[in-house]
């Protein structure tokens, strides 16, 4: 049953459309614009349109499509860039040129490409298969073995499984007889509605930190695989750089980069640089594990709202294959603003700064899709395949990291406020630090992580037993320094004792030698956990050795002139993560130098 357009108000239109239910997709007018029913008033459907509504005419036809907004999930997602409704943007350039056309429908995944399907060696015909079970694998990229999953809502008796061989996404690879005794064909890909979280068996405890290679995060405010983090900060503070650094260096299997209402050039930057960048662990091109979703700030605002869900649904899909997925969303504020715009046009009651009352619950529901889980179907696949099938882990995770762009950099606004309540890791960026070009401009006083205790176990097991102690010591040094600076700014530096002035120097060593990390410096851009620890240890050794020298009567002035101070501050960009031996050497050198100074001083004293 087709309906008729009765009102046009920017991205929101109304139509006489009796049949369509909330959430259903519609096609509008001769332009064939894609929309979604978001409300009903009697026989009128309220529709948000994913494309610009210019030139729509009243009375034009509105066709309900009978399904909700969904994405296609299967091999071929990696390395792609999609728009907010999963249209492949690279293919779109081929099809319609440099500007985004309206009304085109184009499949997300290539229909012609043949994939080598390795049928499961352990699934038996006539056995019962159910959602999440693996039918076999496809090597999607050199990095990623893609499990071909039975769609979550599907089960039945396996009556046919394709042989190992090459298949396109249009060719079935399995047939099952369901409970209604009808047959279902299964393909290499399936669809899933983006607003429905994909099911899993049960949640698991997150245990491993997400190693990002960024010292301020890994060492000071860690995030877990399966955790949720927010990065609020004013414009230019470095949110995007941080998210790109995480996309580059974190030890995840899959990275999903969602550019939601931000700049086109930032996506090009990733598109152009990632294929050239080599993952430090797998030594493969980073693009082989990356998927991008792009709704830039000049693209239609409603697709901004959906882009986040398109991203997180793809994240869940790879999670369901037993992989660790990281999704970065830049920026969740633009997503919230899209909600606000639609709510405003619907005439819904604004509660705070124009945002609708459901802002907090929508944010919470989005972040709730993160987590580490026991995946669906794993225990039903014959888990001990005796090495016949590629290993699939029984757990997967989705880590969500959202940038927040508070107006005027004021963290008391609604989106930052609600997000702060939801996330467990909060990386607050500071304008003062950014202005002084202290990058990443993460404030060590306003940021927090609730994962420090869990992470400590990992660091103790994998890096060094003293991790927690050194972390605490350096944070306390930083806060002492802050306190002392307050005094200095009241009464001047003369009021400080030598020990206190050395505390200021110690804090500087931590700031410059450890916290500051340039994304633009080839060597400094990534630091392995071991390198992170050694740098921290080095700065604290210098600080403690200096303390002893002060007791012996050496002046802070003289200490500050020691060349090893600046050499230490530069170590981060002098030695790469492969050169930790040199760092250890230098630490020994520092100790022996101080030994020498001590002797000199004690001799002088005598």
């Amino acid at each position, binding site marked *: 049953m087709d309906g008729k357009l009765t*009102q*046009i*108000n920017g991205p929101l239109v109304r139509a006489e459309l009796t049949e369509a239910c909330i959430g259903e997709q519609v096609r509008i007018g001769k332009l064939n614009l894609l929309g979604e029913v978001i409300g009903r008033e009697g026989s009128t459907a309220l529709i948000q349109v994913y494309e*610009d*509504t*210019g*030139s*729509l*005419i*009243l*009375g034009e036809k509105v066709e309900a499509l009978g399904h909700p907004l969904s994405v296609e999930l299967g091999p071929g997602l990696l390395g792609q860039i999609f728009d907010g409704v999963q249209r492949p*943007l690279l293919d*779109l350039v081929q099809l319609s040129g*440099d*500007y*985004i*056309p309206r009304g085109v429908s184009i499949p997300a995944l290539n229909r012609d490409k043949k994939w080598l399907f390795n049928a499961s060696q352990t699934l038996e015909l006539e056995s019962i298969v159910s959602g999440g079970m693996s039918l076999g694998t496809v090597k999607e990229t050199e990095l990623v073995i893609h499990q071909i999953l039975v769609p979550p809502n599907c089960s039945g008796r396996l009556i046919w499984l394709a042989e190992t061989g090459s298949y396109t996404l249009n060719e079935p690879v399995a047939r099952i007889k369901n409970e209604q005794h009808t047959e279902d064909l299964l393909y290499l890909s399936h669809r899933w509605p983006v607003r429905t979280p994909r099911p899993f068996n049960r949640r698991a405890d997150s245990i491993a930190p997400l190693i990002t290679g960024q010292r301020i995060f890994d060492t000071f405010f860690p995030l877990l695989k399966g955790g949720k983090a927010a990065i609020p900060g*004013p*414009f*230019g503070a470095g949110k995007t750089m941080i998210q790109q650094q995480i996309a580059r260096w974190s030890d995840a299997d899959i990275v999903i980069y969602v*550019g939601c*209402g931000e*700049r*086109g*050039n930032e*996506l*090009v930057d990733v*598109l152009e640089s990632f294929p050239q960048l080599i993952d430090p662990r797998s030594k493969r091109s980073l693009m082989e594990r990356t998927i991008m979703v*792009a709704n*830039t*700030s*000049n693209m239609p*605002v409603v697709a901004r709202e959906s882009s986040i869900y398109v991203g997180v649904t793809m994240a869940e899909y790879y999670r369901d294959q037993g992989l660790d997925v990281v999704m970065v969303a830049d920026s969740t504020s*633009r997503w919230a*603003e899209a909600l*606000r*715009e639609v709510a*405003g046009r619907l005439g819904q009651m*604004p509660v705070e*700064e*124009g945002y609708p009352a459901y802002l907090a619950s929508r944010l919470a529901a989005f972040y709730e899709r993160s987590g580490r889980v026991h995946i669906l179907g794993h225990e039903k696949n014959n888990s001990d395949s005796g090495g016949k099938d590629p290993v699939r882990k029984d757990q997967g995770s989705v880590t969500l990291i959202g940038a927040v*762009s508070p*107006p*005027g*950099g004021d963290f008391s606004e609604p989106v930052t406020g609600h997000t702060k309540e939801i996330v467990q890791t909060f990386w607050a960026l500071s304008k003062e630090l950014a*202005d*002084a*070009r202290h990058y990443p401009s993460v404030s060590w006083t306003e940021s927090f992580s609730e994962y420090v205790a869990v992470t400590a176990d990992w660091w103790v097991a994998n890096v060094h037993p003293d991790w927690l102690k050194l972390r605490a010591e350096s944070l306390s040094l930083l806060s002492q320094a802050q306190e002392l600076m307050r005094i200095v*700014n*009241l*009464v*001047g*530096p*003369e009021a400080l004792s030598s020990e206190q002035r050395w505390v200021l120097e110690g804090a500087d060593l931590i700031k410059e030698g450890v916290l500051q990390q340039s994304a633009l410096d080839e060597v400094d851009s990534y630091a392995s956990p071991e390198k992170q620890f050694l740098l921290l240890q080095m700065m604290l050794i210098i600080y403690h050795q200096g303390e002893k020298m002060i007791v012996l009567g050496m002046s802070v*002035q003289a200490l500050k*002139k020691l*060349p090893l101070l*600046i050499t230490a501050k*530069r170590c981060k*960009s002098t030695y790469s993560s492969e050169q930790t031996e040199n760092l250890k050497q230098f630490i020994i050198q520092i100790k022996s130098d101080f030994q020498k100074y001590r002797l000199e001083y004690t001799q002088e004293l005598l």
Partner: protein
Amino acid sequence: MIFKNIALNIRRSYYEGIECEEINSERTRTVRGLEYRQASAAHGGLLFMHSVPGIAYGDQVIVTDHRNHKRNGQVVQISGELVTIQVIEGTDDLDLERTWVRFLQKPFQVSLSTDVLGRIFNGIGKPRDDRPPIVSSLKRNVNGAAVNPAARAYPKEFIQTGIAAIDGLNSLVRGQKLPLFSGSGLPHNRLLAQIVRQAKLLGEESNFAIVFAAMGISYSNALFFQNNFESNGVLGNVVMFINQADDPTLERLILPRTALTVAEYLAFDEDRHVLVILTDMTNYAEALREISTEKGDVPARKGYPGYLYSDLASIYERAGRIKNRHGSITMMPVVSMPSDDITHPIPDLTGYITEGQIVLSRELHSKGIYPPINISPSLSRLMKDGVGKNDTRDDHIRVANQLFAAYAKAQEVRNLASIIGADELSEEDNHFLSFARDFEAIYINQDEQQERSIYETLNISWELLSILPASVLSRVSEADLARYHHWEGHPGNP
């Protein structure tokens, strides 16, 4: 009803661009051609009328008032009963009984040809220079379409402006959008004129163009730019779109879009490197607030509509480069910060969209420093790929970082000195004070006619860094120091 029958019988293409004949001159009839006389209300630039079939969202409208003057409008909302039209020239003194509304059944379009160069237009592309209108079969919707991000090329080519505080610390690259955040009485116009004069973008003769889009600026400012272009001998490569302070406010909403449609044509059809100057975006945003309040849109901050961000982005994001096309659009908008407040929604949202910002400071201006660029809040995000070994010089990024860091530290010392007195400062702190003083007086400060090469700028940087001991210069490498730092040689050092 007669009008219905007529309207139903019209075919869209038939009326496009064809002058509408008066079918019936009787005043009692409400329709002649696609022209209607049934407006039911008008206020604040919006005209409301009973809905008529066949009209599309965003379409252009001609409103003929009782004095037979034509005004331009655009359909901004349609429902079953009511069409809302935004009238650019305003709805003041409209006599609704005698006002005719004609729907052109097409969006706002602008005619494109290289004849636009050297011309002056108003916001909807009508000549302001007493010369004939542009005739061309090529017309495009002024709203443009969003560039597919996958079709963009990342901007990387360094533009030398000859201004140290920009080239050295906040480099501009071809295809960047870099606004000037300014305030009333600050010399942003002089600075822009200097950039236009010196930018090496202009090096490639005839291959460049300047699109100058002025919204709500004074006559004297418009004239200042025009004279400037003229005395540089570039007028033949400039297109000006001008809406003066006393011109209709709502025209400011369409003007930048018209200008950018022309800029896109020059850049991507005609392979030119286009510099777009938009001044002043604050006037633009105020016009948007005016109309959105009138429409009853839900306000977000300070009365500006919640969609101000997306709206500004639909303008700013039109800058850039496209793969396989030779031209580029570099954009320098001027944004006046109301009460010098950088957190005001207009500069704030602009900063969230553009690729950095150059911030002018009243304090430096009153110290007599020109250009009064406050470098701490200034930023160029595209600098990282536009400078360095193959583009300018290997040490460029590190030197810039070091200058930023040293100046930030020097500001701290200044604050301290103002509390405890300069006598109490340590020797090192005193070095920072001299550094800051010279940095402002020698590096930032330069003559309006002075054009510094990037190498001069980098060399001055090292002169200044040589005021400071190497032990505080952790942002530059040891190799840089060995090569360029000459601390011993600096006069006045112990």
